[in-house]
């Protein structure tokens, strides 16, 4: 299973999605509505530049992996909460992913 985990780590950056209830987002909203939460996940090993190698060398004691990924956000998400109030959350989900 260790090898499996190692392989999983090599999955490149990509868009994944999860259906979650609004309450699970942890933003404080109380609502049973479900939203599609799209997020970016994966490694950015193929996007490493000299800058990253140099930075890594300079901080050689600590292993850094530059994993800042995420490119564009999806449209606004609106829902009704448990107290019959409407809310709109913008920039909740990712729409496109990439290594930055």
């Amino acid at each position: 299973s260790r090898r499996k985990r190692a392989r999983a780590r090599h999955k490149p950056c990509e868009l994944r999605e999860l259906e979650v209830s609004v309450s699970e987002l942890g933003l404080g909203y109380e609502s049973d509505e479900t939203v599609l939460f799209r997020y970016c996940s994966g490694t950015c090993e193929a996007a490493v530049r000299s800058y990253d190698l140099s930075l890594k060398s300079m901080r050689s004691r600590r292993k850094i992996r530059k994993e800042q990924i995420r490119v564009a956000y999806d449209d606004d998400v609106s829902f009704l909460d448990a107290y019959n109030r409407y809310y709109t959350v913008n920039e909740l989900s990712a729409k496109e992913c990439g290594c930055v």
Partner: protein
Amino acid sequence: AALGLYFPRREYFENVYIDEPAGMPLLRIHALKDSHEEVAHFHLCQRLIVPRAGSRENTWFQIREKSGLLYLSKSLDREDFNVLSVGNWMPLSKAVLHVVLSSHPFQEKECDSPTRATVFLSLINATAPACSSLTARQLCFTEMDLSFHIKENKPPGAFHQLQLPSVHHLCQNLSISYKLLAAEGVPFWYNESTTSVEVTQRLDREERERYELIAKCTVREGFREMQVEVPFLVSVLDEDDSPPFLPNGTDTADAVVEFNRKEGTVLSTLTVYDADTTPIYPLESSRKKYTGTIITDDPWINETFRVEHIFDEIHFSPNGSRVRGTRHEYKLVLNKNISVTEHRSFQLDVLVNDTEFHGPERSVMLHFNVSILPVSIQFSNITYQFTVNRNAERFAQIGKICIENCMKFRGVNITYKLLAPNTSCCPVGILQGREGKYGTLYVSNASVLRRPECKEIQYTVQATDKQSRKHTKTLLTVVLEGTLLKKEEDCPDSCAISKHRAECEECGGLGVLTGRCQWRQGSGKGITTNYSTCTPSIKTCPDGICDVVEGKDPAVCPQDCTSGNIIGGHGKGIGNLGIKSGHGICYCFPRQNCYCEKDDIKEQLCDGVCKTVI
């Protein structure tokens, strides 16, 4: 003159089968009259309309001019049927005819009368069914509800024939009899010889608006007997036959103008009742029918006041049964802002006129006792004294300046001004509060506060009424107190940036009163107005209002004033300004984003760590 004749129902339905013979009666249309002398003449419009397929020349149907009996003048064969249903893709073909009324024999074939009755004929692609195959319901009544409208105050007359002419014609071996089941004293009568229902007396809507009867039909065929009962409803239509009247006889009301002098203020209301109904649509024409006019030849009164009329439906119960009536309200409204110096008393009369009522009591006079009192622009007998901490920062709010009764004023615009003293010690300024009611004192120059030579500063405050130019003055003393604190380094200029209590309370920022920001500890769960945040002064920020001082600089109180992005669970404030409610701790980078998030990182961290250790 308006036609007095009218149809007690506007729509009729009947089925027409193929190959029914010429002369076959289909249905009977009734008209009610305005006077006994009137004679109704029925006329069938020439065009026959086939829905979704246009119109045809009518050659099959005719109406008897005197009796209103619609009959087949020509048998409808299969070919006719095809002509009528061409282009009509519906499985059931329909034809629509219009019937108009006149009190004299028709000269020309006029058909544009607004009161038309519509006959819907279902053309059925089959021969008429045998009488024995029909149910009692089909033999006795059409599918349409028996519901009629009868105008009040009109002479009696027959308005519906229960017997179906077509059934009577085709099923002569059946005995079909009707009965009208009604409570005692109901003004309707079933005439057995004509099988018609008649209204026996003039109706009064103000007495009863709706009659619910039952029509009962008995069909006998040899020894077999079947009975059907259906509701039979009559609504009474209203006309303007009641004069306006005053509830409890009240025709006078006081109207006092004092602190509220703003245009649009409702000073007083008087009510007029009318037992007649008033349609809400079209609103403007109903209003015009019930006018309220200020009776005056004083142009100033005409310019300064107006009367607004609203009406709604109320219920009267003249003898147990509820009938609808109208409540008219006449509101005396200021038509412009009134100057603080104005001082008058007079009686203002409003004539209410029920223009459609034809009687002597069609109008009532309403009286408003108007008193316009002057208000004085003066400070109550005080001189202001405020103490300011020497560590206060720019935009710290010191206090409010207000003339006598200033918070009650509406439509009066007061400007406050500070007349500067003859020294260079000038740390405070004044800003106009909302609606021109009060002035807010704030620190305009923080460095002056720190100067040791400035201790006590005397100002004169002047308040001026914009409209009358009346003004008043009072003295204001600002006392500086407290010792200077050492300034922390690396503090941001806005309290709102701090995310934690410790960093909040050790720093100052724009708007602080004592040199340090204040932490507001929220207690609520979820998204609450009582969120945790760091503020220059808990009293003014966040309070849900972006006041004039906070509005001067976005760094003072972005919690009330931000119009930028708010990230995390939140609710926006009035006019999309500020954070009305937030989740956990809300903090802001002025001119950029605000964030609201739960500060539970510690818990999560522990959970994560613990799991990995195990």
